[in-house]
C-alpha cells in the first residue's frame, strides 16, 4: 500500500546516490516539484532515464548530480535545445556526462517491457538509423517465423520512478488523466515509486473503470504537492506556463545566471512554493 508522506520524506525514502531514476512525464504532468526536492537533498552520481529530458534534467545535470542519461529526445519542449545538457556533452561542464541514446519507439517499448517484467523489448525500428552504430544496447533478434530482423533494446527497470498525477484517493490509488504518456509503465517498471499529486479525494466513484488508475499497492510513497508539475501542467487543474519554458532558454544559457536562478528558485525554495506559481494559470484550465 502506498504510504502518504511529505515530499521531503518521499524523496529521502526512495532516492539514493548512485540510483537509476526516472522522473517521467510527456510534456504533461512533469514532476518538477519532486525533481527540485531531489536537488535540494543533493544527490550525486545518478543515472537518469527519460524519453524527453527537459528543464528538470537540465537542472540536475547543470548542478553535477548526474553521471549518465538514458534518453530519446533532450530538448526544451516547444523552445529548442537544453543548454546545460549541451554544456555537459560538448564541454564536459560541470563534468563529463555519459549518454545512452535511443529513439522514442525504443524507450517506449523498453518501459513497456520493464512493466511487463521482460529483460528486453523487440520492435521494428532503427532501420538504417545510425544510433545503432553508437549505442551497444541496440541489438537485434530474428523472428523465428518470418526471419525478419527486429530491433531489441534492454528493458528499462529504474530503481525509482517519480511521476506527478492529478489525484490519489484515500487508499492511495492514483488517477492519471489526459496525456497519460509513459507514467503507468514507468511506475510499474520501477523497484520503488513516488507519486506527487494535486490533491487527495475520498474515492474514485465518479471515474470510469477503464481510466488510467495505478493501484495503491504498486506505489511506494505519495506526496501532495499542489502545482507540483509547474511549469508543466495538470489537465483539469492549471495550464502550461509557456513563458517559463521560454525563460529557461535564457537562464540555462549562462553558467552563472543558471547557478543564481537555481539558488533562488530551487535550493532556497520549498514544495509549497509551487502552489503560488500556478495561481495565475488556474483560470485558463
Amino acid at each position, binding site marked *: 500500500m502506498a504510504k502518504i508522506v511529505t515530499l521531503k520524506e518521499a524523496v529521502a525514502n526512495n532516492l539514493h546516490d548512485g540510483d537509476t531514476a526516472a522522473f517521467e512525464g*510527456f*510534456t504533461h504532468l512533469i514532476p518538477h516539484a519532486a525533481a527540485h526536492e531531489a536537488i535540494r537533498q543533493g544527490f550525486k552520481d545518478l543515472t537518469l532515464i527519460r524519453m524527453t529530458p527537459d528543464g528538470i534534467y537540465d537542472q540536475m545535470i547543470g548542478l553535477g548530480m548526474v553521471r549518465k542519461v538514458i534518453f530519446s*529526445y533532450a530538448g526544451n519542449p516547444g523552445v529548442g*535545445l537544453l543548454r546545460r545538457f549541451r554544456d555537459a556533452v*560538448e564541454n564536459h561542464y560541470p563534468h563529463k556526462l555519459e549518454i545512452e541514446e535511443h529513439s522514442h519507439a525504443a524507450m517506449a*517499448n523498453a518501459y513497456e517491457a520493464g512493466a511487463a517484467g521482460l529483460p528486453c523489448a523487440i520492435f*521494428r525500428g532503427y532501420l538504417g*538509423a545510425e544510433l545503432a552504430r553508437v549505442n551497444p544496447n541496440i541489438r537485434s533478434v530474428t523472428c523465428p517465423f518470418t526471419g525478419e530482423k527486429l530491433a531489441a533494446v534492454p528493458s528499462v527497470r529504474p530503481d525509482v520512478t517519480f511521476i506527478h498525477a492529478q489525484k490519489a484517493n484515500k487508499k492511495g490509488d492514483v488517477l492519471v488523466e489526459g*496525456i497519460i504518456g509513459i507514467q503507468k509503465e514507468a511506475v510499474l517498471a520501477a523497484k520503488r515509486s513516488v507519486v506527487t499529486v494535486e490533491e487527495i479525494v475520498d474515492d474514485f466513484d465518479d471515474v470510469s473503470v477503464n481510466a488510467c488508475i495505478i493501484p495503491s499497492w504498486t506505489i511506494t510513497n505519495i506526496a501532495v504537492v499542489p502545482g507540483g508539475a509547474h511549469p508543466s501542467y495538470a489537465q483539469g487543474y492549471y495550464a502550461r506556463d509557456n513563458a517559463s519554458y521560454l525563460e529557461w*532558454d535564457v537562464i540555462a544559457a549562462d553558467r552563472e545566471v543558471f547557478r543564481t536562478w537555481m539558488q533562488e528558485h530551487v535550493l532556497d525554495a520549498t514544495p509549497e512554493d509551487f502552489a503560488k506559481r500556478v495561481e495565475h494559470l488556474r483560470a485558463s484550465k
Partner: protein
Amino acid sequence: MSQSFTPNEIMTIAAARALSNSDVCFVGIGAPSAACNVARLTHAPDITLIYESGTIGTAPTVLPLSIGDGELCETSVTTVSVPEMFRYWLQGGRVTIGFLGAAQLDKFGNINTTVIGDYDKPKTRLPGGGGAPEIASSCGEIYITLAQSTRSMVEKIDFVTSFGHGEGGDHRARLGITTKGPTLLITDLAIWKPDPVTKEFTVVALHPGVTREKVQETCGWKVKFAETVEVTPAPDALELTTLRDLKARTDAAHKGTEQAGAKRGSKDG
C-alpha cells in the same frame, strides 16, 4: 499575385495542399503542425492528425506550443499511452504521412537531428531523434519541411538520425524497408520530389518569384531541376486567411499564459 505572403507561409500552405481528407498524419511541432491544421480547416476536414504524445484525431483550435499541449488532448477522438502510440499506431502501419524537419538534410532525404560534428565529441549537441527514426520507416510516406540554407542542406550529413533513401536507388528496399520514405520536400523556396530512379531530390516547382539561382545559393549540393519546373500557385485568400487566423488565435491563446517580457520563441512556423 492577389496578396503578399512570406516564404514561411507559402511553405506551410504548399505542405497543406499535399494532404488529403483520407490521410492520417503523424504531426511534429512547427510548420507541419500549421500545415496539417490548415489542411483540416480548408480542403481536408476529415484528415486525422496524430501527435506522438498519444492524441489521435485531434482538432486543435489553436496550434500547440509542444506536442503534449492540453488542447491536443481535449479535442482528440482518443488519447492513448505513449507505448500504444508507438506500437499500435505508428509501427502498426496506420499513418499515411509522417512529417519530419531536419537540422541537416542530404539530397537523398536522410536527416540529422542528433549532432553537428562527431557523435562522441560534438560541436553542437542537438535534441536527438525522438520519434523520427521510426517515423521515417513506419509511415507510408514522409514529407520534409525545411527553410533552405547551405548549413542545413548539405552534401553529407554528420549523423543519420533518420534514414531517407540512404545512398539512393533501392537502398530502402535493400534494408527491408517497405514504406516509401521521403516523397516530398517543401522548402521556403521550392517543392522537391525524389527522382523515380536515383531518389535524389529534384526541384519540381519554384515558389512565385523564386529563381533557380536562389535555390542553388541556399543549398549545399548541386541542385537538380525537373525537366519541367512549375510555379507553385500563390496562396489563395482562403488559405492565407485560414493560416493567419490560426496563428492569431494561437498567439492570443498563448499570450494569456505568458509573463510580461518573455521572449516569444514559438517554433510553430
